[in-house]
């Protein structure tokens, strides 16, 4: 069971589907998840939407053997921090065998099921990452 309300997921849906964040036009800093205000430029900043390429690299990772409720069927799986080539980092599942994932490995985005609210509830979709060099891992 994923504890997330339908409207809460829906509000962030585009960000999760298409890696849409924001950037500050003044200083060029890019944000994911999207920020409404630039922490550097403050009120002088100018925030606009920015679509990330999705290319990045693995900063660090862990292998989940004892999963949270709703993810038991997926173990073992790799959860990592991805640094996007435009700057920001995010936490995501990496679709790769635990033995083959490496720190510094280049990754690209794929569209996958993130989870579902039981058998009756909503299915949550979004971005995960796979190794860039080959879809095999």
């Amino acid at each position, binding site marked *: 069971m994923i504890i997330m309300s339908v409207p809460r997921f829906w509000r962030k849906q585009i960000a999760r589907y*298409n890696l849409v964040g924001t950037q500050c036009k003044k200083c060029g800093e890019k944000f994911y998840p999207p920020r409404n205000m630039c922490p550097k430029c403050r009120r002088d900043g100018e925030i606009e939407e920015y679509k990330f390429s999705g290319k990045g690299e693995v900063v660090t990772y862990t292998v989940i053997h004892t999963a949270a409720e709703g993810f038991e069927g997926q173990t073992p799986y790799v959860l990592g921090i991805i640094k996007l080539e435009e700057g920001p980092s995010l936490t995501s599942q990496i679709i790769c065998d635990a033995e083959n994932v490496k720190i510094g490995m280049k990754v690209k985005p794929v569209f996958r099921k993130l989870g579902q609210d039981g058998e009756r509830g909503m299915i949550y979709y979004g971005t995960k990452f796979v190794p860039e060099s080959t879809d095999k891992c």
Partner: protein
Amino acid sequence: MSVGIVSYGAYVPKYRIKVEDIARVWGDDAEILKAGLMVNEKAVPDVDEDAATIAVEAARAAVNRSGIDAQRIGAVYTGSESHPYAVKPTSTIVAEATGATPVMTAADFEFACKAGTAAVQACMGLVNSGMIDLGMAIGADVAQGAPGDALEYTAAAGGVAYIIGNKESELVAVIEDTYSFTTDTPDFWRREGMPYPEHGGRFTGEPGYFKHVTNAAKGLLNKLDAKPEDYDYAVFHQPNGKFPSRAAKMLGFSKEQIAPGLVVTRLGNTYSGSCMMGIAATLDQAKPGDRIFATAFGSGAGGDAFSITVTDKIDEMRDNAPKVEELLADPIYVDYATYAKHKGKIKIA
């Protein structure tokens, strides 16, 4: 007015299971099955893949191949018999994830294995009537087959998206015409709430597949006053390797004409994606000017035939997205237990 394919994109999950591994579990003879079905292995989805994620990957590949602005897409229709929701469109997920929303129409199609080609026909009509600029028609499935049923040897996962338009300079292939043959034939079905389809066994053959495929194909050939030898390639719905090979022979098409599109031996039956995947594999290697004859079949039952001519534009576009051969290459083989886990056949309390 010309109408045709502006772009196409395919997606196949990277996992496969061999017929031997399924046969071992049920005590069947793998060699007899492989010879009878002409299928050696089938594509298996990952634990987090379903018809919607597969449709999105195929749709994105189609957009990337042509580089068109997704905002020009005025209709997204996804054909599948494994839509993740009973009520809630797959097509809105696809449209949002490809950047086609919000000024567009969308709906999900269902007609067993030919829902995707029915969506192509709907897009052809909308484009040629001037109602929309471009339409996207998708066939995607994580096909269901009950454990131990004959279908389990072939029911596979994969999807294909076609972007349909009518601006001649944009077309990679012109669809000269389409012809359908449809009757109420209960050869295969799945009732509401049931996890697996039922089928009429051998009844799916003559009164189902062969009657509808040959009538649709002959109807189109007659309408165009064309002959099988006028075409360089042919694709017929591929629930297994045997049916399309036999249909081709009955209609007068050669083994060579159907070879490039006959991907079922290594892919399995991707249901709504089946015939469309064969067309994509053929477009991957066709030359400008080549002609492709294709007939999809959907149980229930109907056949959709298409006459397609490849244009010069194909050479510019082809390499901008993964080809079907590349998607089929270097698979990761899984055993039956892993396959059961991936397909959600193992229930966790």
